[in-house]
């Protein structure tokens, strides 16, 4: 084999020296003379109608430059998914007539220091008529639940349906033929990314009318496009500069700080910094979606899984962010890397009055894997089979049709399991140790024959 230069070597991080000396420039390390700071006034309730926002006391507070409300936002719609053709746009940059989650941004106080901005923000008077919030995904789907979205349902609409789905083979026939039915319900709480660096953005108006924007986003070009759309400004007038991200994990892909910071800079003609507090990072950034997965499998005594039916609810929280897309990723992954001839999957992207959920490391997929693999162990137990064997028997092989209509070309599950067995010193029986992803044999082939 050709000698590799880097693979197999330990190579220092290119940013390592900066990190250990503290010379790496993080966005919060960037300051400009004469800079202003933002403190955000956020919704104290999970759901309500905004009757009025009185900013007069905050505006009169010494050291306050301006207060920004929805009226100041040229195109008051947060639009990340419109760039990939998913709509309707549902999230305002600043709340106008209603609030949909506790912590939703309402108005931004811009002042000479963070200390001043914070105190002035505490003086904004909100008059909000509290409405019954929807906080549970199952309740959200019930007819009696208040309909919280403007379009009159609590779900994202996929092709005219309230869910996205897979229909493959005939699950009812599969269940009828099965020796055992194994069911499981799997639930996960929302997870916060908790980067040690919170969201930070610095925007500086330039004499030529352009904006220089420093942001710790993980998605620079998404952010540039979205900010331009929100500001109604051609993107060539916004110089968006990323930087070292002090921990992202998917939590810094939503365009949450840049539009407001730019508007503040344009409105005041001064550089502006918006640095989230730890509380904002925890309670107002996106999280991984909470999920509830109900899984029913029809299983033969010889280990074959002959049918799987899944109903899964993804808690998007109050707004889309990346959740409608995450639900679709979830849909195709909840079958797992196994060949099952009869599959029925319904995934609902459900809205509740909770902090919006969005991207986080394999979102949609990780949750599916958790449910699928616990389910595999349950199946193994139900029919008295070794958990290694049940996985290898059902593992997908190259050439197998996936339930979402794609022929498998790059299966590696068998080899991965075999390697894992070696690493932990588990000896597989020869039949299993000799399996290969290119095999025609195994249960999958038998299933292909009967399907």
């Amino acid at each position: 084999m050709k000698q590799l230069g880097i693979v197999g070597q330990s190579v220092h991080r290119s940013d390592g020296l900066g990190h250990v000396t503290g010379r790496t420039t993080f966005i919060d390390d960037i300051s400009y003379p004469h800079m202003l700071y933002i403190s955000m006034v956020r919704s104290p309730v999970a759901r309500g109608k905004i009757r009025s926002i009185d900013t007069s006391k905050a505006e009169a507070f010494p050291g306050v430059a301006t207060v920004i409300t929805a009226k100041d936002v040229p195109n008051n719609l947060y639009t990340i998914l419109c760039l990939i053709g998913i709509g309707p746009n549902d999230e305002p940059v600043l709340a106008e007539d209603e609030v949909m989650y506790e912590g939703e941004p309402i108005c931004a106080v811009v002042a000479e220091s963070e200390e001043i901005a914070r105190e002035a923000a505490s003086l904004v008077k909100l008059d909000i008529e509290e409405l019954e919030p929807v906080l549970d995904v199952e309740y959200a789907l019930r007819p009696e639940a208040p309909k919280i979205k403007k379009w009159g349902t609590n779900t994202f609409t996929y092709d005219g349906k309230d869910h996205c789905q897979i229909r493959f083979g005939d699950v009812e026939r599969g269940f009828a033929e099965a020796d055992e039915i194994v069911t499981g319900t799997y639930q996960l709480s929302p997870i916060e990314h908790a980067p040690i660096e919170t969201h930070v953005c610095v925007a500086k108006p330039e004499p030529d009318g352009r904006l220089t924007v420093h942001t710790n986003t993980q998605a620079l070009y998404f952010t540039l496009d979205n900010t331009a759309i929100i500001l109604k400004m051609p993107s060539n007038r916004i110089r968006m500069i990323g930087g070292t991200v002090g921990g992202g994990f998917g939590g810094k892909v939503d365009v949450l700080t840049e539009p407001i910071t730019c508007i503040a800079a344009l409105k005041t003609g001064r550089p502006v910094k918006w640095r989230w507090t730890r509380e904002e990072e925890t309670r107002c950034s996106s999280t991984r979606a909470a999920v509830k997965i109900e899984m029913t499998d029809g299983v033969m005594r010889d280990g074959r899984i002959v049918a799987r039916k899944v109903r899964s609810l993804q808690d998007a929280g109050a707004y889309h962010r990346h959740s409608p897309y995450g639900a679709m990723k979830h849909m195709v992954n909840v079958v797992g890397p196994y060949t099952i001839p009869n599959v029925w999957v319904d995934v609902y992207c459900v809205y509740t009055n909770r902090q919006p959920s969005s991207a986080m490391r394999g979102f949609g997929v990780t949750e599916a894997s958790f449910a699928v693999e616990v389910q595999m162990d349950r199946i193994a137990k139900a029919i008295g089979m070794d958990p290694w064997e049940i996985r290898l028997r059902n593992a997908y092989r190259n050439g197998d049709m996936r339930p979402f209509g794609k022929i498998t070309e790059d299966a590696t599950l068998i080899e991965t399991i075999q390697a894992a067995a070696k690493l932990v010193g588990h000896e597989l029986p020869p039949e299993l140790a000799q399996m290969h992803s290119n095999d025609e044999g195994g249960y999958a082939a038998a299933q292909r024959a009967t399907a």
Partner: protein
Amino acid sequence: MTAEAFHLPRSIAEALDLLREHGDDVVVMTGGTLVMSAINGGQLFPRRLMSLKRAGIDQLRAENGRFEIGAAVTASRLASETDLPLLTQAAAGLGGPALRNQATIGGNLFAHAPYGDLGVALMALDAEVELTRKEGARTVPLADFFANGAAARRPDELVTALRVPRPSGETAWVRLGRRQAATAPVATAAVVIERDADGRCTAARIALGAAGPAPMRAREAEAALVGQPLDESTIEAAAQAAAIGCEPPTDALASSWYRQQMIPVVVRRALSQIAAAAPAGR
């Protein structure tokens, strides 16, 4: 208006003058760990700040078996410079190492639940708190100081010292958290037991933390112990009795309900520790 002044008085007399002069306008701190985090978090907007850090109340003296501890003594110093059971343990487990260099024993008496670890240890040790105002000082047993669920300080007084006797019995400190270090308690028990030659409890003091708005004594649990041998059934009775009358706080780490379930657990563990050790005097 944001803060106008930061006072760093060099004596308690100077501090008391400032307190009289500015009254409610002045926010007092010693270590500042709670006051500064409230300011940073946008929950407190003081006009004036006064820190007692340099007010000459940071002495630590052992005299006739009693410790006299200035209100500005930090948790780090308590952990390394005193050898009082319970208090040393509480101090060593408070927050992380850097926080311990800042957190003071005086400030701890005013910490909101579930904080207040030092207060819990002090209560079990039957400590007294010294409160000073311009007219002079008064000394109050800690149990009375916290009797109404909050530190009973008059507006013109400052906490200047704590007096702590060395306990004569056996002690146990059990603090349950969601991780092993640098975390607020879920439930805490500090126990002092005296036993006679037959192993019967002759006196018991049990103080609980994170069980109500301030550190509190578990009087019913204490009563269940006195006159009894420290066996399994006595321990169980005391553990169950400890939860009576508790109103634990809810926060991000634990619900009130969960804390309520954990109170008997920490008390049981503390008493079992004592029971497992060789009985006193034998």
